[in-house]
């Protein structure tokens, strides 16, 4: 089967405008995304994610290497008709109304008028802006603009949807909405390629993940395996236990914080959590919460770069 996206030995250099020194932003990147897959493109800020996405969308010309979308050159206009794209922090024509805006984009695909009207209405409803169709974009909040940007990316019913940091700058509800839309796209069988510098955005919805650091792709093994390896310990909050059980529990924990009737135990994520739960339950105590603590994505990046073992842990 022809992959939705195939990137081969992609290199992009920029020249510093003053010193003319060459800076390599994307360094020998090879990547393949299968049709129907949801792929998370991770990396810290400045890793080259946006540059890669711009190259894929024909906004930049590669210094060398090849990009093929559904087996054809990325800037081929016939291929562009099958792709939807939402840039990072999008800004749109603020003198247009939401419906005019989407209608304009539909015209760029030569969609007939009757069909345009239908799609515009359906998409505005889908991104929760159905009642704002006649509002000018200059009155839109950042979250609304982002949602409209998603609608714009779907106007041509694309097979491949590319979203650059679709959740950045959104409040928790906005993030959830975008995540739900991506999950819906996945259910509809579309290929989704999206970037993020935040792991929680990615881990719940992606089939696979690629991590980009300093222009190089680090790994492409299965997401869940890799993330499971990062779960290093859990925080268990309990209440109503006897002093004897408290002493036993403390022996299992790396660290214990206690105040009055509530205690917090930090335990390794290797089955000790289950032991602790059994202990507390057997004593008639209550489990208030269990919070897995994970190595942060930044720490993971560092470890990948240095090839080091898990070191400092931070809550995710």
């Amino acid at each position: 089967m022809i992959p939705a996206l195939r990137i081969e030995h992609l290199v992009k250099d920029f020249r510093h405008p003053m010193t003319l020194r060459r800076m390599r932003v994307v360094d020998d990147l090879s990547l393949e995304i299968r049709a129907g897959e949801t792929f998370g493109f991770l990396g810290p800020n400045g890793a080259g994610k946006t540059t890669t996405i711009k190259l894929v969308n024909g906004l930049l010309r590669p210094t060398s290497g090849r990009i093929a979308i559904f087996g054809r050159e990325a800037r081929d206009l016939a291929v562009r008709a099958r792709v939807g794209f939402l840039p990072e922090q999008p800004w749109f024509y603020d003198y247009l109304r939401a419906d005019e805006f989407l209608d304009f984009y539909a015209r760029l695909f030569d969609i007939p008028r009757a069909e345009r009207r239908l799609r515009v209405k359906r998409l505005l409803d889908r991104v929760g802006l159905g009642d704002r169709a006649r509002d000018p974009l200059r009155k839109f909040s950042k979250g609304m603009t982002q949602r409209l940007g998603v609608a714009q990316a779907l106007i041509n019913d694309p097979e491949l949807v590319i979203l650059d940091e679709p959740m950045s700058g959104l409040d928790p509800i906005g993030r959830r909405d975008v995540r739900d839309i991506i999950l819906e796209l996945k259910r509809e069988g579309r290929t989704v390629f999206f970037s993020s510098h935040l792991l929680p955005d990615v881990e719940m919805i992606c089939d696979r993940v690629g991590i980009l650091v300093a222009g190089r792709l680090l790994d492409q093994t299965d997401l869940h395996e890799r993330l499971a390896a990062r779960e290093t310990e859990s925080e268990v909050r309990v209440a109503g236990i006897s002093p004897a059980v408290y002493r036993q529990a403390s022996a299992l924990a790396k660290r214990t914080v206690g105040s009055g009737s509530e205690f917090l135990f930090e335990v390794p994520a290797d089955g000790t959590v289950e032991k602790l739960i059994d202990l507390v339950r057997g004593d008639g105590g209550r489990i208030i919460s269990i919070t897995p603590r994970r190595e942060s994505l930044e720490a993971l990046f560092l470890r990948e770069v240095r090839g080091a073992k898990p070191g400092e842990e931070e809550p995710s």
Partner: protein
Amino acid sequence: MKIVAIAINTFREAVRDKVLYSLLFFALGLIAASVALNRLAIGQQAKIITDLGLASISIFGTLIAIFVGIGLVSKEIERRTIFTIVSKPVGRGSFLVGKYLGLVLTLAVEVGIMGACFLGMVAVYADGALGPASVAIGVIFLELCVITAVALLFSSFSTPFLSGLFTVAVWVIGHLTPDLREIGAKGGGVLASITEAVYLLLPNLTRFNFKAQVTYHLPIEPALVAGVVAYGLVYIAFVLMAATLIFERRDFT
């Protein structure tokens, strides 16, 4: 269809940015002029109305062509709206031509309204000049189309400020090229070659000036008009092609 969509969107932006409000100044000027005209002798009235009218149509149009023209592409890049356009199945050439036609449409509306008011006054004060005046307005419009193309060319690779500077320079030199060529030819040598090159490369905007024919009610030869129109269209095509070539290679960072 795509080009038309981009053109209409560009026109809509100009209208909603209130570019056409500049017509109010033109209308106020016209009213003031007509009040003043009543104090003048009949012969003088006709000359002044044609001179003033054509000059203001040209100036207002040029201001819009330059100031809106230099922002046509750079504004799209600066606001990053271009990211979602050129990633769609829209060729970069189509994008440029669409933007260009959008501004040309804006200018057509602006010049059309100014021209209609002007011809109304010509009919009252100098009805013998109606024919030449109509032709003169058409040719001014063509000149504006040439200036817009030049502004778009600069805007396709440089900042709005520099584009503005370059376009104004072309506009000024474009009105002097025949004189420059003459001076150069007298000087001879390298100077002659340079002025000849400038004459060929930059638009000769003096060709678009039919003021004398209107003022003195002289007939305008159709062949002359055809020559000017052909010159203008070829020049525009040449400039738009150059802009497309540059734009095709451009990275949008």
